[in-house]
């Protein structure tokens, strides 16, 4: 049973990791906690569903369009909600409140447009399950895991191996200096938002398929957990966010199965607090936080 629970935990944890990467990237570049990320995750799931049932009819295409649309919304959040604030050099807390407001707007808009009831979600990655030595792994779990690992690798390579990633790292150290070096700061920040929103959309859609339903409130608790994952791993460090996300999933699954199912979220957050007490910068964070 332990192995089974571990697989359950890693599956859900890897979707947390995808969303946590988005938090970490935005925080790295802007030192801003993007509270709208959870809502974007939910919105991504809904957009794919809407495109699939209403317009396109082909799930793969709907999924791709859903990711693009959510990315576009991520761009809009930055372009219309945050860029002016940066230009005016307002305190960081103002931007945080803006993202909180945006998350409320997205959630309520989804409620009005789609209704607040739980909606069924088609599972296009369900090809049955295999049982190995008493452990059952469904195709959904395997695909979620593979997709997450793939995306995490791509994102890491992009941030740590490309010029664009270097630009992100530069901006995280000093926006002014980056600007002087000829980096288009606004474009890179927008790109960061697009990538984090697209990752959230992929996670939201995969979770929708995994549970075969979706509702407007799903973003809130995932937002909390993924923020916690990012903190657990060390905010601003991509591998930290990934490990933090997976650990968060495993903690809550094992907590629910071995301690008490009624306290599952409390257990995972208690572990988080203990880790932070002993290692304030997170598991992978250094004293001087290295940003993306």
């Amino acid at each position, binding site marked *: 049973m332990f192995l089974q*629970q571990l697989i359950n935990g890693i599956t859900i944890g890897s979707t947390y990791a995808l969303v946590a990467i988005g938090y970490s990237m935005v925080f790295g570049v802007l030192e801003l906690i993007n509270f709208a990320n959870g809502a974007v995750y939910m919105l991504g799931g809904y957009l794919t569903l809407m495109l699939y049932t209403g317009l396109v009819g082909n799930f793969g295409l709907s999924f791709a369009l859903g990711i693009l649309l959510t990315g576009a919304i991520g761009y809009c959040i930055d372009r219309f909600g945050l860029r002016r604030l940066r230009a005016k050099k307002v305190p960081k807390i103002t931007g945080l409140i803006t993202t909180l407001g945006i998350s409320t707007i997205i959630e309520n808009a989804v409620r009005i447009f789609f209704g607040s009831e739980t909606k069924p979600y088609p599972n296009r990655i369900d090809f049955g399950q295999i049982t190995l030595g008493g452990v059952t792994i469904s195709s959904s779990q395997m695909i979620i895991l593979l997709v997450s690992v793939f995306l995490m690798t791509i994102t890491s390579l992009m941030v740590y191996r490309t010029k664009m990633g270097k630009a992100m790292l530069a901006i995280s150290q000093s926006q002014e200096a980056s600007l002087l070096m000829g980096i288009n700061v606004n474009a890179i920040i927008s790109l960061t938002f697009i990538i984090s929103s697209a990752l959230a959309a992929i996670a939201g859609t995969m979770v929708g398929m995994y549970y075969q339903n979706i509702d407007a409130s799903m973003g809130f608790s995932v937002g909390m957990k993924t923020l916690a994952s990012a903190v657990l791993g060390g905010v601003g460090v991509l591998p930290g966010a990934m490990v933090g996300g997976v650990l968060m999933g495993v903690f809550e699954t*094992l907590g629910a*199965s071995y301690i008490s199912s009624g306290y599952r979220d409390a257990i995972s957050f208690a572990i988080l607090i203990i880790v932070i007490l002993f290692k304030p910068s997170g598991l992978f964070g250094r004293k001087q936080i290295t940003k993306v």
Partner: protein
Amino acid sequence: MKEKKMRAMAIVLAALLISGCGVSGEGTTAASSAGTAAGTTEAASTAQEATGGTGNITKHTLAASVPLTGTMMQYGTSYKNAMEMAVADFNAAGGLNGEDVILEVYDDKGEQKEGINVANMIIGNEDTFAMIGSYGSSVSMAAAPVYQEAGMPMISPNTSHPDYPDMGSMMIPLACKSEVVFGEVAQKLFDQFGACNLAVIYQNTDVGITTLDAVKERFESLGGTVCAAETFVPNQTKDFTPLLSKIKATNPDILFLVAEYSDGASIVLQSKQLGMEDVQLVGVGNVFKQEFLDLAGTKADGMLLMGISRIYTPEIMESSSFGTYTEDIVKRYNETYGANGIAFDNFAALAYDAAMVAMNAAKNAGTDNTEALVQEIKKLNIPLCAGDAHFDENGDLIREIFVFSVQDGTFVFEASK
């Protein structure tokens, strides 16, 4: 502030007016009852012989307190429609020895405060022999002391709170206490599947915990094993795989779900993903909803649903045998109110029964002796639309348990006990 005061005064005035009416009406009621007592002793005694009743019929009003506005108005509307139909049916069949029963429906908005205001209005009318209401335990229980003190029989179609029946001799619930229902459900499971391993997954609410306790107590006392009991936070828990994996490791034969429809659907789907194909799924009444099937689809096929409420969709009505009495009521109700989009439901069935039981008891036992009237109501010796029910020796209402199953993504009526 001022407006509020004005409104409060208006309510007080209205209450005074109504109780005033009651007082002025008293003269006529007293006179007529004196007339009845003096002039028709023979008639009364023959009526006594015919029905075994003891009292005289001096009152003709049946009152009701239901939510007709606010968030719970759809339930109140079902109640009102069904009671109107019941009163019309009763009057058409002769009424109270030839006199029509008058139905007075008050709007309590589904709020406790309004429920008490309405209660005071209802007890102010001297012509009222019984009342029906309210929707939901909280409003019923807020108003119950008023009715108890005034000696007004209070028939409550779906107040299932375990403390309600003990609030006084005037309280007549037509809904079972949940522990009684789930004891019966456990019995039924044992009868059907024998002494097997039962796993329970329940929502962390009052209802969930009471249900678990009731099921566990009965099932284990019969010799079965409750091999796992796992809880979750309703509408928040999305990932049931940890709980289900843990349950799966205990090798259950039956997985018993105490969940609302959306959580229930998630549990069903995730249990299939974990390869729990051989486990018999059993659900409670909360999931008797089309929305459940929309979410779970054919993955719920083979699942059993047990509860005291029936569903009355056209498909179910066709496949089931609820009896001609019920079928006739459902048909006429849907013809009258169905056009407005209000289909017959379990609330309507219970309200119809409540009104019929009250009026028949008044006919048989008279309305001048409240205690006798309550005793007569509690006999429940008329056909019941919502299914057979009786009070046991402990004073608990016992209802038959209905079993539905899911087949090819639709609900199918299985059997009743």
